[in-house]
């Protein structure tokens, strides 16, 4: 597979590369050499980064959310193999920093719309492992009462709106959410995730363009993980990089190393702050890599040999952050192990609880399409044959028809 390779000199130090200044380099997400930890030379002084404002506890928190995402998904794999997950299973392995770091840049009152690899974003926003497990296991007390799959659910109070499968559709929806913030003069920001594939859709284009024209407080994050199902990015776009699309919409664009959780936080926080200050939409491209298939069934036969292994060995977001925690936060092995143990205990407890939940009642399937229940008789054909005749029977004495009941004409 022909690859445009990055120079490796990409300015990941600040975590961002602003479009249009000629400094941003072509980067292919599917080339691990292009995504490197920031070199000492390009790393800016800590004071210039929004993440410098995070406390040590908050920085350890970032690790907790990433670890929780990964451990919860690993538990789901086990449940999937036991056939307790009744549908497909979608992993975000290797993308945890991108999800967690970006969501962490929002305030509680802000609203995001996740994609299928944003379990971490939802957890940060208050979704619980128990909800996720019940949802995957199609339980009656799942957040959608068994109606929707995987992480397709939301809660506007906690600040996340459930996605749908047609990609790009959440961009116009979040334009409407943030339009409301603006109309009501609320100090709130929206964030919407799309993948590299969704940027090719009409919905993405119409949504981001409308939001840009209206100067809505919206951050659009393009998670470039190299593949849309099996389609590599060079079959998705002729653009050198997705962040370049910002120019066409007349909005600022920024690019960051999606596997560096602090860089993700930095670039998102800057965009969120701009939106909050009335600066409108920002397009953020996060460079990451999808280490698992589109879903658990996907054997990734289309991925060049060695690519996944290299990313796992050289560019795992958790491994990288453990180094940062040790070197910059002075985190001890015991501290990190304690977070890991807490995560395992939480996932264990949630699994035990979720297993107890019952499946939905079949009749609940008919409820709640509209605010008001419809007057129609649903599934009438399951009613008894005698009753159907009784209900529909023509009055006796009509025409030549003879009732089988009475024998009268």
């Amino acid at each position: 597979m022909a690859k445009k390779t990055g120079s490796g000199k990409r300015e990941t130090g600040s975590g961002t590369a602003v479009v249009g200044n000629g400094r941003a380099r072509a980067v292919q997400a599917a080339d691990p050499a292009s995504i490197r930890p920031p070199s000492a030379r390009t790393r800016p002084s800590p004071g210039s980064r929004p993440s410098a404002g995070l406390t040590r506890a908050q920085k350890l928190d970032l690790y907790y959310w990433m670890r929780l995402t990964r451990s919860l998904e690993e538990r789901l794999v086990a449940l999937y193999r036991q056939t307790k997950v009744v549908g497909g299973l979608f992993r975000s392995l290797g993308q945890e920093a991108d999800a967690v770091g970006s969501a962490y840049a929002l305030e509680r009152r802000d609203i995001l719309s996740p994609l299928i690899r944003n379990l971490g974003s939802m957890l940060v926003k208050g979704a619980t492992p128990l909800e996720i497990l019940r949802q995957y296991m199609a339980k009656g007390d799942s957040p959608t009462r068994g109606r929707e799959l995987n992480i397709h659910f939301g809660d506007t109070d906690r600040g996340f709106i459930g996605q749908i499968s047609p990609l790009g559709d959440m961009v116009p929806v979040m334009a409407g959410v943030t339009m409301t913030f603006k109309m009501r003069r609320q100090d709130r920001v929206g964030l919407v995730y799309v993948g590299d594939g969704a940027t090719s859709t009409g919905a993405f284009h119409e949504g981001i363009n409308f939001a840009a024209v209206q100067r809505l407080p919206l951050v659009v994050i393009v998670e470039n993980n190299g593949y849309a199902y099996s389609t590599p990015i060079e079959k998705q776009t002729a653009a050198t990089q997705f962040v370049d699309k910002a120019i066409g919409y007349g909005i600022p664009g920024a690019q960051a190393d999606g596997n560096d959780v602090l860089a993700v936080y930095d670039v998102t926080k800057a965009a969120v702050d701009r939106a909050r200050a009335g600066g409108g939409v920002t397009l953020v491209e996060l460079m990451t890599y999808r280490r698992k298939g589109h879903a658990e069934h996907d054997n990734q036969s289309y991925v060049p040999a060695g690519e996944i292994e290299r990313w796992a060995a050289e560019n795992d977001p958790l491994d990288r952050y453990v180094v940062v925690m040790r070197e910059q936060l002075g985190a001890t092995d015991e501290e990190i192990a304690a977070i890991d143990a807490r995560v395992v205990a939480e996932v264990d407890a949630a699994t035990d609880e979720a297993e107890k939940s019952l499946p939905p009642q079949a009749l609940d399937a008919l409820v709640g399409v509209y605010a008001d229940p419809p007057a129609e008789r649903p599934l009438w054909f399951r009613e008894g044959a005698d009753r159907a005749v009784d209900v529909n029977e023509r009055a006796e004495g009509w025409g030549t028809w003879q009732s089988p009941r009475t024998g009268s004409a």
Partner: protein
Amino acid sequence: MGEITYLEALREGLVEEMERDENVFCMGEDIGAYGGAFKVTDGLLDRFGESRVVDTPISEIGIVGAAAGAGHMGMRPVVEMQFIDFIANAYDILTNYVATARYRAFLPCPMVVRGPSGGYVRGGPFHSQNPEAGFIHTPGLKVVYPATAEDAKGLMKSAIRDDDCVLFFEHKYLYRRIKGAMPEGDHVVPIGKARLAREGRDVSVITYAATVWKALEAAEQVEKEDGLSVEVLDLRTLAPLDDEAIFTTVRKTNRVLVLHEDTRTGGIAGEITARINESCFEWLDAPVLRVTAHDIPLPYAPQLEDFVLPQTSDIVRAVRRLAAY
């Protein structure tokens, strides 16, 4: 009180609801400064300002999606499709996102998508369509299509107040041809209730929108020429269908014609016929007949359009055929 046109009635409904509820706002292409392609929103910008009368880019997906998002947050957006033909661009977001939102995610989408629909106006293939059938087929959407000025206003007010998405089809042939006197006060017409446009004994014509008026013309003609008494049921709402009103007229006349301007195959007449078959089979004295447009894209030339769309003479012929059973 004087009479106003169907179009003015629509505007009156919009204005009254925007005054009543500050969460109501309008979005669409050329609806602000220009007042809309047909001037339905004329004057609204001056009255309510740019934040509540929003001129948008040419983006049916974008503005319908944005309406859904605003609806989730408690707003009541009214989105104009410049011509209802363009609603096809928003088909995905309406059917996959909006229609399912309450069921799958408990997210309300109180929104109206409205626009000029229908033919008889020499509009050609892309300014004459009646695409209601595709949306009636989608659980989660409501569809209304008024024939009178009174219903245009009353249904508009109901649609805006409804907690679900209502697709509001406006017949452009009726915009300035039909007038009515608006009832005093808060005139609201309930969604889901048909209207008996004409009482009769012999044959029922079940229809909606512009063909209601053609059915009434035909009824007058067969009354004079054949002594037949034709009942005309104006559905007004296409989803949810008013089964009770349909079955009542079937049981009364035992002979039914379902009439619509939309094309035949997969049109709503088939659905209505099936419901009558299921629930009123014993009450029929004749097969349920359909008069619809032919299954072709709508052509431009008057000689072609008039040939394709249902005309009064088609209805007269079908009513006579039913009466002959």
